[in-house]
């Protein structure tokens, strides 16, 4: 076990940080907000943490906290500005926001290190620390998925008008999703950066949006567990199948397209459907009888 851990420590850490990034995109989508601002939050969190360490001489965790808080605040403010946009417009406005973050980083001079990025921000982070952060984040998300809260979130996403008619404050839920997405994205960026000691503007790009989307679309967009499944598939598949390694991006593109067409709820959705069908066999039989009578 410990040998296996030692050999794969980087992959394990990458799985966890990828999970955080994926969650920062998944949360708004689950709330019916097509926002990619989580990737911008990744950039803000990463840069803030690195700046705090390099320029201000802060220690690891205050830097991470500052990155997460600032990312949360900025993305929440973005939410206030763009909340009236719908669907695709929201998606594109938030992609634009994310790309602006990287343009600002390029032009940040000494503070951000310009196009070359910022170096030497090596934090003291081990797998246990990341795991602790992930557990806290997941605990919060489990709460938003459970029972009544999960039902209200589902309604806000699937049918905002119905949600309003049922007395749910749709705008408040959506704004909250911006803040949560910002904090989680900021955490992902800060931890990833301090783990690797560097961040560059080129990282905060469209490819990262694709990466995060891949994980949640393939895994499942409705639950943190889906994002986890996606992150595991995404990080470990290349190590298991060498064909995947060489044609990595082709395989992911293919997986995303296939999932979008055939598995809108991802692998997790498929599993849940199966479980549901098994559990309700009797009821469905009764229903069939009812319908014949009717």
């Amino acid at each position, binding site marked *: 076990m410990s040998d296996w851990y030692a050999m794969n420590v980087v992959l394990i850490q990458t799985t966890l940080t990828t999970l955080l990034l994926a969650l920062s995109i998944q949360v708004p989508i689950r709330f019916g907000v097509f926002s990619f601002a989580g990737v911008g939050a990744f950039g803000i969190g990463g840069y803030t943490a690195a700046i705090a360490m390099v320029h201000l001489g802060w220690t690891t965790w205050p830097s991470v906290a500052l990155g997460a808080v600032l990312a949360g605040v900025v993305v929440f403010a973005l939410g206030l500005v763009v909340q009236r946009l719908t669907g695709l417009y929201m998606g594109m406005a938030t992609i634009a926001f994310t790309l602006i973050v990287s343009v600002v980083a390029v032009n940040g001079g000494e503070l951000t290190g310009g196009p070359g990025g910022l170096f030497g921000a090596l934090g003291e982070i081990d797998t246990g620390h990341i795991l602790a952060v992930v557990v806290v984040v997941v605990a919060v998300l489990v709460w938003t998925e459970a029972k009544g809260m999960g039902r209200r979130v589902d309604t806000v996403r699937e049918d905002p008008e119905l949600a309003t*008619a049922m007395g749910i404050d749709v705008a408040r839920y959506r704004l909250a999703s911006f803040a949560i997405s910002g904090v989680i994205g900021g955490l992902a960026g800060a931890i990833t950066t301090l783990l690797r000691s560097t961040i560059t503007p080129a990282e905060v790009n469209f490819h990262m949006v694709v990466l995060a989307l891949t994980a949640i679309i393939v895994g499942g967009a409705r639950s943190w567990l889906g994002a986890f499944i996606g992150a595991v598939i995404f990080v470990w598949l290349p190590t298991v199948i060498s064909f995947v390694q060489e044609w990595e991006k082709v395989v992911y593109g293919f997986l995303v397209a296939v999932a979008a067409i055939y598995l809108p709820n991802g692998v997790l959705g498929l599993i849940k459907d199966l479980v549901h069908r098994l559990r309700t066999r009797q*009821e469905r039989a009764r229903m069939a009888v009812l*319908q014949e009578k*009717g």
Partner: protein
Amino acid sequence: MAESAVGRQTALLAMEDVAVHFGGVKAVDGITLEMYEGNIYGVIGPNGSGKSTLLGAMTRLTPSTRGRFLLDGKDYTRVPARNVHRMGISRTFQTVRLLDDRSVRDNILLGLDALPKQTRKETAMQVDEVMERVGVREVAQLRPDELSYGMQRRVEFARAIIGRPRLLLLDEPTAGMNTAERKEIGKLMRQLCDEGITQFIVEHDVEMMVETCDYLFAMNVGKLIAEGEPQDVVRHPAVQEAYLGKGAAADA
């Protein structure tokens, strides 16, 4: 009966000169009406006469262009739509709008979500009772897409009544149901009415409306053309003309 109550008590719901315009289209144009507690009201009218829009405006989900809405004499025209449910006005929709990934039970519970918290036990009893009443208890764990259309409508009905609203707005509650199911729902409406839930129904089926309602409104092109006892309203010349003019005489 409705008219005996007029003038004695405050109307449960009153509308004064309400209009809803979409751009140049006057979907609802200057409607004034009152509804009193303990009755079943219905509105009939040809397709596109503004019935559903009127219902939408009462819930404030559809913004009105002018006019006032009063509940118990209190103006709620400026209350946000999300607070109307809490005030005791509940509704169903013309098309089935259920959460596909959630069980029947969960879908019904949505009707309680924004209302004051109760204990878990109370909630469970309430949802069981309401499922029993509308006849979906047997399929509580199934998802809407595994149910027949009529069943789905019952789930919607259950979601609308579980919070025991004071005013229940029903948009074509029996569309897609067979005759037996219609009878059943009609009976349920009467029971609910006896329990003090005032109802406002939008329907095409004039026959059923005459049977079920205590008081009828008739609409055409956004305006009220008649109101009163169901039998009288149906025979009203303006109503006859509205239906015959649209070539829908068979309905009436």
